[in-house]
């Protein structure tokens, strides 16, 4: 068992960290306050290959590995939860399913623009009546000659208002239940496709979250992703990978909060001493750091397993479950250590706490992760 990062991974971490500090951190507060999508950051990340990290150069990717991608999301999340999820949703939920399930034509058509970051990707599974119960799909797709006609809507779609390419799920055969769901690659420009208004959220406020609306939306037959009826399986496999990204986001948020709290408690003086000199502060920070370090091992292990084409589904679930709950706990404790100042928007910890909460919910709630893990354990 080798816990060392490769030379390349160490160099990348250095680059991610410098980029996050210099390009992302200065905008984090503003994009949260203004609920503004940081397109200028996406353009910079695209130039550096950060929008297609672990995909082969053959399709326009950067030729890296899954762990390098997870580390990128982690380092971005340390300073900005919004920027981290932009990369994660684009990479794991759109680029990945096309790469893993697409025909050669589909890959050559869509991946170069996505992996280079010229176009942004998104994933449309969730509906008003199909959240955790993803099989309750009501969006329909009817084959008519050389195209499908999609009708329905999706909600809470990350990158929804900025993406050009969407991996969307719809019911092609209601009678077959889960086996009647199919996946499609939908372009923003397809007739009958539109997006809804920006969702106002507790956290990751700069992330674009909105509805996708399909009104007799025409999707060419060749845009069916995988086979008809295989959509649910594709969705679940995609979410397995996505969990690594979100776990990395949660990991970064928690670590960022610990960093901020360590700095602050060494400056703040009460009762004639620095907060860091009180044992409570020391013990709190020890606990917080230990939790995030444990989360890091889980996240990295899941990434390595995916990279090695091993079965990583349970590992990804455990990583996301643990990292998300740790992040929520650690960011809350960070606010507490900052006291009154931590509650103000002058300091970043309240934003980190608001950002962390969603990691317990999206891409499979913590309850869903527990279902996956217990099921894999054989506990019925």
């Amino acid at each position, binding site marked *: 068992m080798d816990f060392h990062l490769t030379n390349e991974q160490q*160099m990348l971490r250095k680059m991610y960290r*410098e980029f996050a500090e210099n390009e992302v951190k200065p905008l984090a507060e503003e994009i949260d306050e203004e609920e503004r999508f940081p397109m200028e950051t996406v353009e910079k990340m695209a130039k550096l290959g950060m929008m297609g990290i672990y995909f082969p150069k053959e399709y326009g990717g*950067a030729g890296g590995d899954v762990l390098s991608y997870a580390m990128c999301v982690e380092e971005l999340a340390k300073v900005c939860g919004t920027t981290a999820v932009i990369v994660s949703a684009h990479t794991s939920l759109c680029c990945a399913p096309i790469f893993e399930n697409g025909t050669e034509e589909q890959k050559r058509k869509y991946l170069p623009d996505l992996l280079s970051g010229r176009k942004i990707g998104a994933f449309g599974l969730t509906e008003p009546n199909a959240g955790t119960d993803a099989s309750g799909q009501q969006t329909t797709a009817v084959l008519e000659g050389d195209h499908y006609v999609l009708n329905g809507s999706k909600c809470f779609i990350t990158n929804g208002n900025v993406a050009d390419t969407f991996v969307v799920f719809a019911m092609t055969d209601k009678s077959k239940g889960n086996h009647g769901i199919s996946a499609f690659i939908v372009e923003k420009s397809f007739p009958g496709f539109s997006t809804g208004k920006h969702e106002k959220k507790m956290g990751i406020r700069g992330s674009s979250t909105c509805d996708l609306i399909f009104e007799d939306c025409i999707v060419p037959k060749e845009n069916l992703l995988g086979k008809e009826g295989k959509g649910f399986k594709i969705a679940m496999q995609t979410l397995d990978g996505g969990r690594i990204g979100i776990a990395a986001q949660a990991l970064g948020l928690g670590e960022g909060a610990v960093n901020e709290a360590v700095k602050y408690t060494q400056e703040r003086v009460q009762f004639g001493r620095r907060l860091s000199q009180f044992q409570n502060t020391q013990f709190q920070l020890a606990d917080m750091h230990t939790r995030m370090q444990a989360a890091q091992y889980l996240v990295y292990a899941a990434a390595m397993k995916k990279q090695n084409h091993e079965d990583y589904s349970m590992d990804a679930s455990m990583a996301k479950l643990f990292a998300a709950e740790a992040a929520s706990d650690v960011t809350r404790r960070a606010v507490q250590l900052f006291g009154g100042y931590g509650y103000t928007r002058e300091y970043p910890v309240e934003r980190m706490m608001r950002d962390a909460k969603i990691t317990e919910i999206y891409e499979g709630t913590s309850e869903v992760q527990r279902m996956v893990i217990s099921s894999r354990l054989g506990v019925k």
Partner: protein
Amino acid sequence: MKIIVSIKQVPDTSGKVAVNPDGTLNRASMQTITNPDDMNALEAALKIKDATDCKVIVVTMGPPPAAGMLREALAMGADEAVLVSAREFGGSDTYATSQVLAAAISTIGIEDDDIVLCGRQAIDGDTAQVGPQIAEKLNLPQITYAADITVEGKNVTVKRMLEDGYMTIKTQTPCLVTCIKELNQPRYMSVSGVFEAYSKPLATYNYETLKDHPLIDATTIGLKGSPTNIFKSFTPPQKGAGMMLEGDGKETCEKLVGILTAKHII
């Protein structure tokens, strides 16, 4: 055409400067970075490469860990790297260093249309001597403090930024230019660049490689041969905030005189 960029790995003096009990710099305890002005030189080379598809070779004189810095330069887009490293070169001052670097650059080879780029000065030594000394030893025209560089074929036009204004000078390749921070904003390593870095060539020149080069005088390299030796490095005591005396007129002057007299300054 190729561009040879001379870069140096230096302690990060923007953080804490650690000093040994004997007054010398505790380099081992400090983070290392690529000298900032050298990053500007490298970025200038890479910009010219973007426009002309020329080759960029980075060279450094330093201990083995400096190879890590060279790999970062390769990840930024440089094509080849040369590490000049030997015990015999250790402890060199600028005279000795520039001798070794000139020999190394000459060994790499300078064609008629090549350019050598250096940073203006390193943040640890702060002498700004090595670039000009290399130029002298290699008989290259040198232009220093470049705030802008334009290359058109064999013509190199440099806008120098001086304390009191600018000076634009045109020369022809081969030549040497030293770069300042106002020249450009260095790029980050790219993800694909990082994954290519370890497959690009990195050659090591040691004492054996260079000892017979005509530019090398064994008596003037290394700590023993250096005309300058560092006697002591120390952090100067921090200046206090000073004292502000408010108000104008005779009263304030009298107060000042009183204070200076009490301190036996007047």
